[in-house]
């Protein structure tokens, strides 16, 4: 039996427990940096993707909210004012000269002006935006369905992912891998709520929120919804883009499938 009234033994046990704890934590840090162990941990993402995709049909919708639910203060995260000189020039001109380049594995690559996108059928949705950090905001988004754009240019059979390249550089790097980009698969690309939004809360999308165009992928976390979209490419694989994991945050350890 352990006698807790004896201070020396209590101190010893406390010391032993804290040393063991510190050792275990140091061990976890070591494991966190081991490539082999990270591969094991990454199977959690595979499970999330397989199970959540099995639970969701291509038409399962994210909840849409009422006007009254719209957040008064929608947090703008990540880049809020890209420094890229070409982007600055476009912004100063109200994005009149901005063109969305749609290409890659498509039948007829083409450029879209904002007016072209606005002339297409639009979708408006009031949805909850969930940041990977843990907070949520509700906003009203209006834009053109990504599916409509993709159908216009026509996908080649080998296309498996849609890659969006952005104007913002979120991290300064020598090799250019600090530029924001994202990729989604065709199931999300063709989802009815996946839109290229040009309006937010009934007004033209502001620069902090991604003007002139941002993606909405309502069944995933915020980092899957890039702002300042400049190019859209259909690809077979994203292994040779950025650092090969399919997105700016994915290249920095975050899950490619961000359904949770």
């Amino acid at each position, binding site marked *: *039996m*352990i006698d*807790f009234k004896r201070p020396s033994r209590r101190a010893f046990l406390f010391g032993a427990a804290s040393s063991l*704890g*510190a050792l275990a*934590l*140091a061990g*976890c*840090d070591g494991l*966190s940096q081991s490539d082999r162990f*990270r591969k*094991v*941990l*990454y*199977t*959690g*993402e595979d*499970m*999330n993707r397989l199970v*959540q995709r099995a*639970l*969701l049909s291509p038409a*399962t*919708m*994210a*909840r849409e*909210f009422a006007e009254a*639910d719209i*957040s008064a*203060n929608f*947090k703008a995260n990540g880049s809020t004012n890209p420094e890229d000189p070409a982007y600055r020039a476009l912004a100063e001109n109200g994005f009149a000269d901005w063109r969305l380049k749609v290409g890659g594995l498509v039948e007829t690559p083409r450029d879209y002006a904002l007016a072209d996108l606005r002339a297409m059928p639009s979708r408006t949705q009031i949805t*909850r935006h*969930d*940041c*990977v*950090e*843990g*907070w*949520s*905001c*509700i906003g009203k988004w209006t834009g053109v369905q990504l599916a409509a754009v993709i159908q216009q240019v026509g996908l080649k059979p080998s296309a498996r992912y849609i890659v969006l390249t952005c104007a913002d550089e979120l991290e300064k790097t020598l090799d250019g891998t600090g530029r924001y980009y994202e990729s989604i698969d065709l199931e999300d690309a063709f989802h009815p709520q996946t839109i290229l939004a040009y309006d937010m809360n009934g007004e033209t999308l502001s620069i902090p929120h991604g003007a002139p165009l941002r993606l909405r992928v*309502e*069944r*995933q*976390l915020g980092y899957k919804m890039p702002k300042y979209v400049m190019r859209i490419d259909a690809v077979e694989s994203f292994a040779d883009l950025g650092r090969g994991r399919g997105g700016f*945050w994915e290249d*920095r*350890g*975050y*899950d490619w499938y961000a*359904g*949770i």
Partner: protein
Amino acid sequence: MSDGSITAQRRPRRLVYRHALVTRITHWVNVLCIVVLLLSGMQIFNAHPALYIGSASDFDNPVLSITAATNAEGERVGLTRILGATFTTTGVLGLSTAGSSVEARAFPSWLTVPTYRDLATGRRWHFFFAWIFVINGLVYLVASLINRHITRDLIPTGRQLRGIGRSILDHARFRFHHERDYNVLQKLTYLAIIFLVLPGVILTGMTMSPALDAAFPWLLDLFGGRQTARTIHFVCATAIVLFILVHLLMVLVSGAWNNTRSIVTGRYAVDAKEPSDD
């Protein structure tokens, strides 16, 4: 009648088989999972150390926040705000030392996995062990229904329930009977953890997933929105921590060696003469 060495001072004891193999294995897998989930959960919390009520975050009105600030004297302090009340928690919450530097971080370095700030890796640990935790829990549930661990060992008898006052007094006096069966407070606590807190922590975790919210919109209605679910997730985690502290205290004061043996080998030494009351 007893197989231990009996001295005049010690009550005679005999060993009984208290915990089935599946109970013991799932217990220890659970220990590993819950420790990792708590530590990686605090890493994730540190990315946005505030909790809210409702669907979205009302950033100006969190129900709980843990931040660093500069006080009137110009010193850096850690502040914890709960429902409008502010507590100075410098050194542990809000502001703490990590290695040789003082860092603004909600939970200290020695309570997070990894110890350094890394949300992406914290999430990897959390979800990997969440899957093991859920699968382990399902194995436990199915096995415990089949081997009648739940009905035989966890559901209190009518006689036990009527004697609950006595059991509370015994616990308050740290007087413990060593019997094969759990006592009534133990049974009720285990039932609350197994059927309320653990399902609660899993379901609120699921409610934080935008994909699962699309698949099961009733989760949002059940918990009152994603941010309320996140708050309840944190409350459940706190309940688990409190349970672990009381559980460990009870293990230590009611026969540390005997209790540990019963959850490792299954064998538990009981008082040879069972008291007539529960």
